[in-house]
C-alpha cells in the first residue's frame, strides 16, 4: 500500500473503509461519513494525548547520536532509544548502529539540555533509561526548543510539531502521534455529537512505532502510561447500559481501556496506570466493540492488534481491497472503521 507522505489538505475528505467484522462487508466512504456510521447511544473514545518533540540530536560522550524518547518512566526518568548516524531520510533499519552506551554516560543536547544514562536494557543495547539534569520549566522549555517530532522516512519532508497533533490534543505524553485521531476535525466531532453519539477522552502515551532493531521492535510496545478519567468510565458504563457500541479511536485507546480493565479484574477503575498489555488474535476486548484506525501494512504489529476486532481473513481481504482501490497508508493515510452493526 502506498504511503501518504504528507498531511493532505482537508482531513475529513480522506477515505474511510467501513468494515463489518462479522460479514466482511465493506463500504468505500469518506471520513466525513463517520457521523452517519455511528448512532445515538454509541460512544466514541478519543486519546487526548499531544505529541512530544521526542527526537533529540546530541552527543553521547563524543559521538553524534539521535535519541528518541520512548516514554516517561513515572519516577522522573525516561525510556529512550539511541539511533546512529544518518537522519530520518534513511529507514531506521538501514541506519548504522549507534555507539554503545554504558550506565553513567552523559548525553548532551545543545547548551541547555543534558542527561545521564541510568541503565541499559537487556532487551537491546540501544534501549536506555535516562534522567535529564533539568526539571520543571527548564526541562520542558529546553525539550521543546531542542526536540523535533519523530520523523518518518516515507515523509516528503521534515515534520514540524503541528503536523503530529490531533485537533483535540491536550496532554503531551506521546512520543509518536496517536494518528488515528488525526482526521477528526472539530466540525466532524461536533457532527458526531449532534447525532447523539457520546464522546469521551482518555490519555494514553503512544510509544515508538519502530526502531530498526529487530530485538527491540519485537518487544514493542514498551509499557505505556494511561489515564482513564472518571468521566470516561461513566460514559462507557452509560453507553453499555443503553446498548450502545463503544468505538475506540486508535490502538492507543484500546490499550488504555483494555489495559485498565485487565489491571482491575475486567472492570474499568478511574485513574492512571501503566500497561504492558499486548493485544493480538486471541484477545477478546472487554470494553471496545470497534475501532477507528489508520491504514497500515499487514506486517505491522498494528495488524495483529486489529485481529482482536476482526478475523485475519476478513482483515486481509479488506487490506487487499483497500490497496486495489488506492487507499493510502501510515500516519497521514486513510482510515478504517471496524465495527459490528448496531
Amino acid at each position, binding site marked *: 500500500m502506498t504511503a501518504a507522505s504528507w498531511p493532505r489538505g482537508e482531513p475529513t475528505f480522506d477515505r474511510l473503509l467501513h468494515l463489518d467484522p462479522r460479514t466482511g462487508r465493506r463500504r468505500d466512504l469518506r471520513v466525513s461519513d463517520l457521523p452517519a456510521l455511528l448512532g445515538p447511544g454509541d460512544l466514541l473514545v*478519543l486519546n*487526548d494525548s*499531544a505529541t*512530544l*518533540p521526542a527526537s533529540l540530536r546530541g552527543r553521547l560522550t563524543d559521538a553524534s547520536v539521535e535519541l528518541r524518547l520512548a516514554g516517561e518512566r513515572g519516577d522522573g526518568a525516561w525510556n529512550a532509544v539511541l539511533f546512529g548516524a544518518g537522519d530520518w531520510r534513511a529507514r531506521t533499519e538501514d541506519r548504522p548502529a549507534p555507539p554503545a552506551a554504558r550506565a553513567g554516560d552523559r548525553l548532551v543536547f545543545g547548551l541547555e539540555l543534558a542527561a545521564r544514562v541510568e541503565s541499559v536494557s537487556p532487551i537491546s543495547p540501544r534501549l536506555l533509561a535516562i534522567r535529564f539534569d533539568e526539571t*520543571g*520549566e527548564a526541562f*520542558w*522549555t529546553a*525539550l*521543546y*526548543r531542542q526536540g523535533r517530532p519523530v520523523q518518518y522516512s516515507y515523509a516528503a519532508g521534515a515534520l*514540524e*510539531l*503541528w503536523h503530529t*497533533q*490531533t*485537533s*483535540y*490534543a*491536550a*496532554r*503531551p505524553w506521546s512520543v509518536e502521534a496517536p494518528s488515528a485521531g488525526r482526521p477528526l476535525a*472539530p466540525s466532524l*466531532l*461536533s457532527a458526531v455529537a449532534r447525532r447523539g453519539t457520546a*464522546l469521551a*477522552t482518555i490519555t494514553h502515551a503512544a510509544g515508538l512505532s519502530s526502531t530498526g532493531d529487530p530485538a527491540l521492535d519485537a518487544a514493542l510496545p514498551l509499557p505505556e502510561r494511561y489515564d482513564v478519567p472518571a468521566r470516561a468510565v461513566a460514559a462507557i458504563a452509560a453507553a453499555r447500559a443503553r446498548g450502545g457500541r463503544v468505538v475506540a479511536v486508535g490502538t492507543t485507546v484500546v490499550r488504555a481501556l483494555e489495559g485498565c480493565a485487565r489491571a482491575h479484574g475486567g472492570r474499568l477503575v478511574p485513574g492512571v496506570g501503566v500497561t504492558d498489555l499486548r493485544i493480538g488474535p486471541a484477545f477478546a476486548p472487554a470494553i471496545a466493540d470497534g475501532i477507528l484506525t489508520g491504514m497500515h501494512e499487514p506486517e505491522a504489529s498494528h495488524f495483529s492488534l486489529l485481529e482482536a476486532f476482526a478475523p485475519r481473513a476478513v482483515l486481509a481481504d479488506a487490506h487487499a481491497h483497500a490497496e486495489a482501490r488506492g487507499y493510502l497508508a501510515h500516519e497521514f493515510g486513510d482510515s478504517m472503521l471496524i465495527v459490528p452493526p448496531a
Partner: protein
Amino acid sequence: MKDEYRTLVHAAVLVTGASRGLGAALARRLGRAGARLALVARGHEELDAIAREIRAAGGEAHALPGDLGDKRDAHRIAGAAAALVGPIDVLVHNASTLGPVPLPLLLETDCEDLERVLAVNLVGPFRLTKIVAGAMALRGRGLVVHVSSDAAVAAYPRWGAYGVSKAAQDHLGRVLAAELEGTGVRVVSVDPGEMNTRMHADALPDADPATLADPDRVARRLAALISHPEVFAPSGARVELAGVPERESP
C-alpha cells in the same frame, strides 16, 4: 482567599504578556487564588522574576519565554505549558504590541509594521487558541479572554495599526464564540481602560499617571471575571472591566 475565587483553584491558566503591566498584575492575583500558571512573554528576565515572586508567595507559576508571533514558538509554548500545568482551562491573550512609537499616522505606517502588529496581536493569539480550543471543546469547558482596548471601538488618530488589530481581535472572538456555542467554551473580549503601564507611556508619554488606572486594580476585576465568566461575561461579549466589581481578594 474569598469563596468567590474557588473556581480558580488548580485551574490551568496561560497568560501572555505576563512580564509586566496588566499581565503581571493578573498573574499575581491568579497565583494567589491558587491557579496553576503558565506565563509567557518575550523577555526572559522580567518574566522569571514574576514567576519566582508568585512561587515565593506559595503559588504555582512557570515562565515560558517566547515570541507568539512565531509559529514554532507558539507550538513550543503550548506544549510546555500543558506539560507543566495540564490542559489549559483559561487562555488570556494579554500580550500586544503598539508597533513603532511614537505612534505614526496610519498613512505613514509601513505596511511591514502593520503586518507585524497583526502577527503579534491577531494571528499569534488565534494560533494559540487553535492549539488549545479543540481540547477545551471536547472537555466541555474553557475560557478564552482577549484583552482589547478602547482603540478597537473608537477611531483615534495615530492608533491605526494597534486599533485595527484590536478591532479584528474583538471580531475574531465574536466569531469563535458563535462557532463554539453549545460546547461550553466561552470567548470574551475585555476592555481594561487606560492604565498606568509602560505601553501607555510609550503611546502617550505626556499623560498624567494620576489619571490612569492602577493595573493591579484592573487585574482584580479581570480575576473576578475569569473566576465567574457566567456572571460577568456572556460568550461573545465585549466587557468594559470598569463595570466589573473590584473584589478585595485574591
